[in-house]
């Protein structure tokens, strides 16, 4: 509800995502992409409809159960990295593993950071890293618990094209290695094209057209 009355953000969405699939959700700003992502990732609750995550219906779950589900099956990458700025790169990567009670969290984190090419930056704080490096830390953090589904919200949105490409390479490589399902929200057509499926969100409706080079997706100005 808003002051102006009822506002429908998403309407008539019906979609399936298969295990190991990678899908990109494209669409202009305010079209409801992030809302959909929040719903799929069990961060938000729909007013009506049903979402099943790895066969489990989300509608019957309370916040605690949703958190437990996320801990077991889901991970995230954000546009603004969302690293804890007072913790080192290593400690940031360790966080989800520690929350999940993984015993050898440190070793795993070191290993993940090595895989994203940051073994020399373990003790650096986020502010001592470049944007690209910070997102690599975030990728390492996302994969440390070997999630079934990875949700990425504009993972390259804050990076220049060279760094964006590197991050995308890394993301898709790790995705393939770990057989993770990837749900990606982006403006970047190039990035979207690397996914197996592309969905377009417009005015709260989702469609799956064939993506062409010419398709115009408005960029959000800084």
């Amino acid at each position, binding site marked *: 509800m808003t002051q102006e009355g009822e506002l429908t953000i998403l309407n008539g969405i019906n979609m399936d995502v298969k295990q190991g699939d990678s899908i990109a959700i494209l669409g202009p700003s305010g079209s409801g992409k992030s809302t959909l992502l929040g719903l799929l990732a069990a961060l938000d609750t729909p007013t009506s409809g049903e979402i099943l995550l790895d066969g489990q219906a989300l509608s019957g779950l309370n916040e605690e159960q949703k958190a*437990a589900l996320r801990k077991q099956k889901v991970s995230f990458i954000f546009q603004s990295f969302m690293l804890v700025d007072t913790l080192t790169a290593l400690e940031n990567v360790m*966080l989800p593993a520690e*929350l999940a009670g993984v015993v050898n969290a440190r070793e795993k984190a070191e290993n993940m950071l090595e895989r994203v090419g940051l073994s020399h930056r373990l003790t650096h704080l986020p502010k001592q890293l470049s*944007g690209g490096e910070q997102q690599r830390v975030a990728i390492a953090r996302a994969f440390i618990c070997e999630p079934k589904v990875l949700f990425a919200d504009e993972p390259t949105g804050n990076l220049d094209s060279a760094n964006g490409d590197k991050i995308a390479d890394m993301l898709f490589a790790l995705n393939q290695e770990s057989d993770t399902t990837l749900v990606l929200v982006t403006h970047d057509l190039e990035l979207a094209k690397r996914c197996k499926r592309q969905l377009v969100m417009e005015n709260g409706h989702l469609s799956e057209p064939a993506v062409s080079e010419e398709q115009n997706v408005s960029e959000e100005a800084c």
Partner: protein
Amino acid sequence: MELQLAWRLFKRELMQGQLLLIVLAITLAVLSVSGLARVSERLQVAINGEAANFIAADRIIDSPAPLDEQVLILAESLDIKHVTNMKFNSMVYSGDNFQLVTIKAVGDGYPLRGEIELSSGITQALPLTGEAWYENRLGGLLGYPTTLELGNTELNLSAEISRLPDAGFNPFASSPVLLMRLDDVDATGIIQPGSRVSYVYQFAGEAAALTEFETQAKPLLNNSQRWTDVQSGDSPIASAVKRAERFLLLASLLGIALACAAIGIAAQRYCQRHYDVVAMLKTFGASSKQIRTLFGIHLMLVTVLGIVLGLIGGLLLDIGINQFLPAEIAAYSPPYSRPLLLGVSTGLISAFMFSAYPLMRLLAIPPLRVLQRQLEGLQFGMWLHLLLSLGAMALLGYLYSRSIALTMTVVLAVLLLGVLLSILGFAMIRLGHSVGMKTTNPFQLALAGLRRRARQNAVQLVGFSSALVLLLTILALRQDLLNEWQKQLPEDAPNYFLVNIAPEDTKPLDDFLDSNKIIATDIYPVIRGRLTHINDEELISRREEKDGAEGRVGISRELNLTYRETLPPNNEITQGTFNQADDEVSVEAEVAERLGLSLNDTMTFNIDNQSVSVKVTSFRQVQWETLQPNFFMIFKPKALEPFSYTSMASFHLNDQDLKQAGSDLTANGVVLQLIQQFPTISVIDVGAMVGQLRQIIEQVSLSLSLVLALVLLASALVLIAQTEAGMATRQRELAVLRTFGASGWLLRSATGLEFALLGAIAGILAVIVAEFALYMLKTQVFELVVYMHWPWWGIAPLAGAAVVAFLGMWRCRQLLNQSCSELLKAG
């Protein structure tokens, strides 16, 4: 896991300085409480100890008959030392000379506090059996005999007393004192059934035992028995000690309230900074319990660090202060248990109760914030925050002061202050509404900034102003109290009193003083008279009233009356006027109230068997604590001139002044000459007492300065915390303005001006509220003269502007120097 994570987060944040403010705020609260508790306890003991020297004991029971044994047994059971003395008047004879003296017959152990000063030096001994010590006046009056007859016995005069610790201050004490042993009284045969004797029981012991003793012993006393302690009002320092105690307590409570406010603001900032962390942790699946535990432990670590630092700080404060205290006070070490307990509970209560609300909001942050950054979760009612904060303040106040009334007063005052400042602050910021939103002129940009953040600024304003109000209040009170004491005991306060000056001695005495370059402060004629009637109604005595007589109760002793053309200094007329007619009298206000007098009443006195009637034309307030001759009744000369009188005078004399005046004599030498030349004049040396009083006042002043320093620190912390609180939004705005091409100079000037304006408004508000608070405190609590602090009206806004602008600019300096992209990234 949570412990490990909490520890890691704590360690990192601490190293990066992010916890500085909240740790500092907790440290300051704990330091103030633990340090002040110990220092004030030490000073309290010192002050009471000094004061006890004035009554030669900690507590006294005065009784017209021997005291119930039960009371003495009670004292012994509480490990309280006691000594029994008798006081009565009697005539002593030496050859053909005789003199009325006050006999002080004392038991072993007298004096329990203080020392007896003999002309040969200080002693703790007592006269031997068959001996007596005499006050120096008596020697002069009787021609320095070696023995005296008292009743059936003859006593050897073995020493001359310069001062007894419980001599009190009464230049009118008509009869000199003779000190003897209590055991010798029986042999004199003077005390018969019905004799007027005062039994004086003196007690001394530990503070806690004395309190217990007071609680249990007081109900055992009857109406004729009088309980006295150092604050009972008789001692000249009683009011100074009482005021200082009230001030210390009040200032400490306000200091704690300020430190709490700093904790509150810092806690809010602490929680806000963790919003994203909580959202992120929840997104990655952390359960509510995990997050609660994590931040519970994290806050506990912060609190423990604050408490430990605070306790260390308190200890250092205590050690530091000790360096300035006289050795005998420094040697007294009160137990550490109370300051320790107070410090720890203050840390825990303030940290957790002030953080409770921000923490609840933090824990309620929804995970969706990772995608929608503006989300802040549940909005709990502000009343809950207010309730918890006031509750914490009340709990702490009570723990510290152990007085519900005082605690409630402070809490209500703080609440009122907050409400008042919020309304005023919001209204003042809204006043800037008419100014346009141009971004070319730094002043307009600053005004626009103030208005845009009206709500946030109103909150900041409350913080700034409260800190300034409390600071100004404490500053003014401290200054007034110090001035008051200074006035009471100026450098040239008289240290010698001359009484019994015969009219024919007045001129030669004047010459003697002149030749020794001594300036006598005042000469007062003293005439003794008894008040007999008010408006032709005969007055009855208290004893007659007890026996069933009806009527107005008068004053059952002779009064010392004086006359003057104008009222002496330190006498403030509260009602009426003086110097209108020849047959008028000015009456001291308290006596007037006791006698039920009104202006224009007629009072009749019996002087030398003649009736003198005068009209009451004024009431006066007299500062009894000043070492000045004070009178209940002051007449106009015409009314009393026909009667015989003696005079009294006082002067200040010390060796240094004499040397400067070119005299070879010492003060003692001059006084000796004076006594030899005028044997009938009694010289009373109050120098020792003045010195003692000064020492007490210096100690009290020290404690006041200490509290002021702590309040200053707490205020500064509130200011810093408050500046810190608005940084996040400011950063975003700077980024936007910078992006749109605002120059560095414009942004710096606008930011500086905005803070300066905020500081200036806070300064004005603070002066208004502080003047009001001071009016209330001075009239209701401290009995001080009320006046406006005009210079503050200029200084406070200016200082407020300067300090807040400095703090704001200092805090913003990095933001102001950052490039657009850095700002946007950080925002």
